């Protein structure tokens, strides 16, 4: 890239260059989602998208109603009629799993949205402010971080008789925001001292623009990673609570299916078609979300991306990246550096 030192046209001659159009909106949107553009993120997003689709189209996709009892077909292994077999009441396991997706997705995302909003507000404000205001917000965050979450949720959930999904999501969100807030506070504090923020302040930018337009775009990757992580935690929390039985079992999700399976002794009687699919679904969504987060991590920290590649490339040429001394070749290598 050359530095353009003297490109002003000779005086007197009009410039003929036509003005270039602004970068199209599509290109700008594309660059905003650059963190998702690597293989890992795309795979993760694809799997997640699949589950979201199943949740939305549950009524269409499930072959039976999940509560349809069929006394003639109890505890049957997978067959042509029941792809995933039946429960102790003859209900179709596949339909239950399909319908269960809805509760999981809704609660997971709702809880994560709530938690992330709180985390962003508390974290960024705590990072930007100084002095006792920042310290007290940080202390608040740390309190929520240290107090063990699951026992608290168990106790709170047991106080409700029949909590709707929103309430469950709210409880999960209100106990899960602290980690993201802590990370965001640290990053905001580091950003605040950067020169471009100082330049914006020196130019008289109002506070809301400094936080909203200068800092937030640089925090997007971190916020996205925190959101994805919270979805994972919320889904695991929901299914665990459902399995324990703290959340009443009239809502469908994969955890409640496991609750019934366990209560009926499915694990002891090797009725694998009942207890394997729900657990595998939870794991699958967990993997998808982790992959998305891996992708974001590599985008944020390019060292993670290139470290392995560089070592492999060196290995191909017979060198070890950890060698103390660089080997000096006496014969020219056939391949040049990429």
């Amino acid at each position, binding site marked *: 890239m050359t530095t353009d030192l003297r490109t002003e046209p000779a005086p007197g001659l009009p410039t003929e260059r036509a003005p270039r159009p602004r970068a199209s909106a599509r290109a700008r949107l594309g660059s905003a989602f650059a963190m998702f553009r690597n293989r890992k993120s795309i795979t993760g997003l694809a799997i997640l998208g699949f589950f979201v689709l199943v949740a939305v189209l549950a009524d269409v996709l499930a072959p039976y109603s999940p509560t349809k009892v069929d006394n003639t077909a109890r505890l049957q292994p997978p067959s042509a009629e029941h792809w995933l077999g039946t429960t102790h009441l003859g209900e179709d396991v596949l339909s239950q799993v399909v319908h269960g997706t809805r509760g999981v997705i809704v609660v997971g995302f709702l809880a994560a949205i709530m938690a992330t909003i709180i985390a962003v507000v508390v974290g960024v404000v705590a990072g930007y402010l100084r002095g006792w205001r920042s310290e007290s917000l940080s202390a608040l965050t740390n*309190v929520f971080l240290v107090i*063990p979450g699951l026992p608290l949720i168990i106790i*709170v959930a047991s106080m409700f008789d029949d909590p709707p999904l929103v309430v469950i999501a709210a409880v999960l969100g209100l106990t899960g925001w602290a980690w993201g807030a802590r990370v965001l506070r640290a990053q905001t504090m580091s950003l605040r001292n950067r020169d471009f923020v100082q330049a914006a302040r020196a130019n008289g930018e109002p506070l809301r623009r400094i936080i909203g337009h200068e800092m937030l775009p640089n925090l997007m990757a971190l916020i996205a990673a925190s959101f994805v992580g919270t979805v994972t935690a919320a889904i695991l929390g929901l299914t665990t609570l459902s399995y324990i039985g703290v959340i009443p079992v009239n809502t469908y999700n994969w955890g409640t299916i496991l609750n019934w399976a366990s209560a009926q002794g499915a694990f002891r009687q090797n009725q694998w078609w009942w207890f394997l699919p729900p657990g595998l679904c939870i794991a699958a969504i967990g993997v998808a979300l982790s992959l998305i987060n891996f992708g974001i991590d590599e985008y944020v920290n390019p060292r993670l991306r290139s470290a392995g590649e560089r070592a492999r490339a060196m290995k191909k040429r017979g060198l070890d990246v950890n060698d103390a001394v660089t080997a000096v070749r006496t014969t020219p290598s056939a391949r040049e550096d990429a």
Partner: protein
Amino acid sequence: MTAVQPQLPTEDAVEAGTTATTAVRGRSRVPWRFLAGRAAFYLFTLWAAVTINFVLPRMMKGDAVSQYLSRNRNVSPEAADALRSLLGLDTDKTLVQQYVDYWVLLLRGDLGVSLLHGLRPVTEVISQALPWTVGLVGFATVVSFAVGTVGGAVVGWRRGSRLDALIPVTTFLATIPYFWLGLLGIALFSVNLRWFPIGKAYGVGMRPEWSAEFVGQVIHHGTLPAVTIVIASLGGWMLGMRNMMLTVLDEDYVTVAQAKGLPNSRVLWRYAARNAVLPQIQSFALSIGFIVGGTIVMEMVFSYPGVGKLLLDATNAKDYALMQGVFLVITLSVLVANILADVAYAFLDPRTRQTEA
């Protein structure tokens, strides 16, 4: 979990906004100010936890709680009074008075009586269950942290090799819910292979004592739960350590160490891993809360007689006094563990010692 940010250097200079700090010699090697700050924080957290415990039952529907007392006639008057203070039924007193009484009760060590356990004091019930949980959690967590950290250091060191495949495997294991992994473990190893018993800490009919047979049974029963916790939590430690290692290995001081001709093992352990492990200790402290959560579920799956199972049984039976007591004890234990981790961190990271100057 995203990679943890490395610490900022001497906070004070950065905050002061100037590089004109004169070097001052550190006065002592014990970072008193750092520890005092952390102690203040933990006291505050303890106060917050106690207050939450105070507020919670008072938000519940009143009749549910008074039903609780009326169900059991043969509660002694003192015990009944204590229960009223604990559960917020003493509405004839002002809120402030209730709060003070609550604290008095706690400081006396009186957590009420457990209806589920035949009116025995809650403290007694909990102290019977606590050692089991501490033993299981402590052992499994330490093993998981050690194996995960060492493994992560090695995977980070040998970047680009086949060991990289370990990361997605362990991460996959970490996304599987604890309880499902435990149930699968039972299904596979207990039911099918019959290598391990299905649950509980020791055989039916045995009484706790310090005999070889008893200890043997404890180990036999405890293996499956412990192994499950280790497998499930390994992934997080390994990933965090590996990411930190990759960041540290790019630093110049590692290159200098290698250029000096130091043997690889020394650079790996004494230079790279030593610095990469510091954020791990921080995240260890923070994740103790999550570990406790996982253990609760594990105890339910394996019917292990620890505080987790106690909490769940109490929740199902609506034994509010026991629920409160267990929550307090769990929170207290988490705080203590955090304090220990902070002390360890303060002594391991020379920078915290330096800010004393």
